[in-house]
C-alpha cells in the first residue's frame, strides 16, 4: 500500500487546517508527520482515512493494483487522536466488537487478544470495564484495537501521547516489529526525539503547511540555517583572528581555546581547516549539527512569527 498526497488543502469555517501539503508514503516505510499542536497533522490524517475530504488537491492510495481516494476500509489500522472506546464495556467486549466489525472470526479474535493482552500485561484485567483502567492502559487497548487485525498499513495519530517513558518504549518496540514485518506506518507526533530513532522519513508541518521532509539528514540540510563548526585550539585565540579568515561570518567564543565558527555555505570545511591551521594548532575540528527538535524550533519559530505578522497586516 502506498500513499500519494498532492497539493492538498483543507479549510474549516475560519481556519485553513492544511495548506497545499504534498508528500508520499512508500510501502514498508515508517513515515512520521511532525509538528506542534494545530500544525494540521490530524486534519491530514482524517482525510487519509476517509473521515473528511480535501477541498483541493488529491490523495491517491494504491493497494492491490487499485487506486483509492483514501485508505480503503478494513485495509488499515487507525489510532485516532481523539481516543475512545466504550467506557461502560469491558476491555474484552470492546476489542471483540472491533474485531467483529473488521470481519475477524471468533478464533482469530481470541488468538489476537491472548497475544496482545499478554504482551501488554493486561490479561488479569480483561473483564474490567474500560473506565476502570488508567489512561496509559486505555491507550494500550486502543493500540490493540488498531493492530489486532494485522493490517498492511497503520495510521497512528499521536501514539505516544499520555504514555509514561516505559510505555513509550513499549510502543516503540511494537513499531519496530511492525517495520520488520513490512507494515507501512504513518504516525503523527510531536515527540521528535522518539520519532528520530524510528522513522525512515519525516514530514515536518507547521500552520498547515509542510516545512521540510525527507530523511533526518535531508531535513537537517533543509532546515540548517547556519553552518557551524566547533574548533578546539591547542592555545587560546581571539575572535578577531578567526574573523580574518576568508569565509568566516562569525565566531562565538565558548572557552579561550574553543570557538564555534559560523561560515558561509560556499566555503568548504576543508578550506576552512587549512586556513585555521595557519593561526594555530588544532586539537578538534567538527561540524555542529543541532538535533531535529532544535532545528524544527528554529524553522517553525521564524515561520510562526512571519505568519502572525502577515495576519496583523
Amino acid at each position, binding site marked *: 500500500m502506498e500513499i500519494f498526497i498532492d497539493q492538498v488543502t483543507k479549510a*474549516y*469555517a475560519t481556519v485553513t487546517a492544511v495548506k497545499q501539503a504534498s508528500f508520499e508514503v512508500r510501502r514498508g516505510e515508517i513515515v512520521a508527520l511532525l509538528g506542534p499542536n494545530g500544525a494540521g497533522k490530524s486534519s491530514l490524517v*482524517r482525510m487519509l*482515512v*476517509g*473521515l*473528511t475530504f480535501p477541498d483541493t488537491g488529491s490523495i491517491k492510495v494504491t493497494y492491490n493494483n487499485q487506486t483509492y481516494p483514501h*485508505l480503503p*476500509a*478494513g485495509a*488499515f489500522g*487507525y489510532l*485516532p*487522536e*481523539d*481516543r*475512545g*472506546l*466504550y*467506557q*461502560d*464495556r469491558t476491555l474484552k467486549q470492546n476489542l471483540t*466488537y*472491533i474485531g*467483529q*466489525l*473488521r*470481519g475477524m472470526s471468533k478464533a482469530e479474535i481470541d488468538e489476537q487478544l491472548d497475544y496482545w493482552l499478554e504482551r501488554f500485561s493486561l490479561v488479569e484485567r480483561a473483564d474490567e470495564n474500560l473506565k476502570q483502567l488508567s489512561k496509559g492502559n486505555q491507550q494500550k487497548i*486502543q493500540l490493540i*484495537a488498531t493492530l489486532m487485525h494485522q493490517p498492511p498499513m497503520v495510521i497512528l495519530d499521536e501514539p505516544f501521547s499520555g504514555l509514561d517513558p516505559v510505555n513509550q518504549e513499549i510502543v516503540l518496540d511494537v513499531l519496530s516489529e511492525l517495520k520488520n514485518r513490512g507494515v507501512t506506518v504513518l504516525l503523527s507526533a510531536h515527540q521528535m526525539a522518539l520519532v528520530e530513532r524510528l522513522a525512515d522519513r519525516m514530514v515536518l508541518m507547521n500552520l498547515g503547511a509542510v516545512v521540510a521532509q525527507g530523511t533526518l539528514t535531508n531535513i537537517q540540510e533543509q532546515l540548517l540555517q547556519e553552518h557551524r563548526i566547533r574548533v578546539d585550539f591547542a592555545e587560546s585565540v581571539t575572535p578577531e583572528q578567526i574573523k580574518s579568515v576568508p569565509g568566516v561570518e562569525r565566531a562565538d567564543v565558548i572557552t579561550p581555546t574553543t570557538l564555534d565558527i559560523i561560515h558561509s555555505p560556499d566555503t568548504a570545511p576543508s578550506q576552512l581547516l587549512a586556513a585555521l591551521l595557519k593561526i594555530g594548532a588544532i586539537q578538534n575540528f567538527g561540524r555542529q549539527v543541532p538535533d531535529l527538535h532544535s532545528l524544527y524550533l528554529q524553522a517553525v519559530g521564524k515561520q510562526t512569527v512571519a505568519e502572525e505578522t502577515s495576519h496583523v497586516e
Partner: protein
Amino acid sequence: MLNNTDKVWRVAKFEFLRFFKWKQELLSIGLMVGGMLVAISWGSIMAFFQPEYRIAVMPTQGMAQVPANLPTVTRVEWIRLPGSERERAQQALGDRYDGVMLIDGHDITLLVERRRDWQQNIDSAMADWVRERRISSVNLTPEQHAAVSDPAGIQINVLRTVSGETVVSDEPRERGRSLVSGGILMLLFIGVFSGFGLMMTAITAEKQQRVTEQLLTLMTPQQWMDGKIIGVTLHCIKSMATTGIFVMVLLSVISIVSGRGMFVLPVTFVDVLTLIVFVGFGLILVNSMLAGFAATIDDPNHSSRPLVMFIPLFPVGMSFSVMSTPESAFSTFLSIFPLTSYATMPIRVAETSVPWWQWILAAVLLIATVYYVRRSAANLFNLGITMYGKEPTWKQIWQTAKAL
C-alpha cells in the same frame, strides 16, 4: 470482509446488548410488580387509614327532631342533637365534630371547617335521601313510585359481525376493546420514551467518549446509523413486550383470583398486524429522527437541542384525541399522515372500522418516510462528526436533512 447487512446487525446486536442488563430488567419488573400491587390495594390502604367522621345532626326551627332513617354513609357517624345545641356544636367543629348538619325539611346544610373529599359522600347520600323523601311525600302507588325512582336512560347496543352474522357485542368484550386501545397507547409511550433516552446515550455519549472516529473507519455512517436504529428499536420493542406481557399476566391473576376465569383481551388479527407494521416502523421512524437530532448535538450538557428531540413524541400525545373521536376527519388525517400514523392508526383500528385503502396508504407512506428519514439521519450524523467540536447551524441541518 463483512457485507453491509452483517455490519448493520453486528452494530444492532451490540447496541441492544449494551443497554440490556439482566439486573436492571429484574429490578424494573420488581418495581412494576410493587407499583401494580400498590395501585390495586390503594383503595384498601386509604380506607384503612381513613378516619371516622363525626357529624352532629340537628333540626332547625322548622322541624321537631331529626328523622330516624338517615342514610348510612361509609365512615360517617351521625350524632343526633337537639336544635338548641347548635351553637355549642358549631364551637366544637374541628374538635369533637367534623361537621354540623342542619336539617330543615328538604333543605340540608352541612357546616364544616374546610372543603374535603369525604364531604362529597355525604352530599350524594343526602341528595338521594331527600329525593326519596320528596317522592314518598306525594302518596304515589307502588307502581308509580317504582316508575319515578327508576332512572331514565337508553340502552346502547354495539353491533359486530361474527361469521357473517350481525350480533350484539357483549359488555365485557367492549370493555376489553377499550383496554386494547388504552394498552396500545401505554405501550407506545413506553417504546418511544425508551428510544428517546437510549438514542441520546447511544450517540451523544459516544461522541463524548470519542468512539466515533475509530468506528467510522470500519463502516459507513449509514451502516452505523442503521445498526443503532435497529438496536435501539429492538430495545424499545423489548421494553414494550416485557410490560405488555407483565400486565396481561397480572390481569389474568387478578381475574382468576376474583373468580372471573382467565383474562383474555379481545384482540383481532388486524390489531396484531397493525401493531407490527405501524408500531414497528413507527419506532424505527422515531428512533431515526432522534438519532438525526442527537447527531447534531456536540455536548448535551451545553446544547439546547435536546429539547427538539421531544418533537417526535408529540404524535403519541395526539392519540388521546383519536381514542375519543376515532371517526373524525382529523383522526383520519392523523392516522394517514406518516409522522403521526404510527401512533394513531393502531388506536383507530382498535376503536373503529378503518377502510382498507386508508390502512394501506398509511403503511406505504410510513415506510417511505422511514426510508427517507434514516438516510437523512445518516447524513446528519456525517455532518455532525465532521464539524469537530461545533454544532451545525439549523440551516446546515435543514440542507443536509433534505438531501438524499
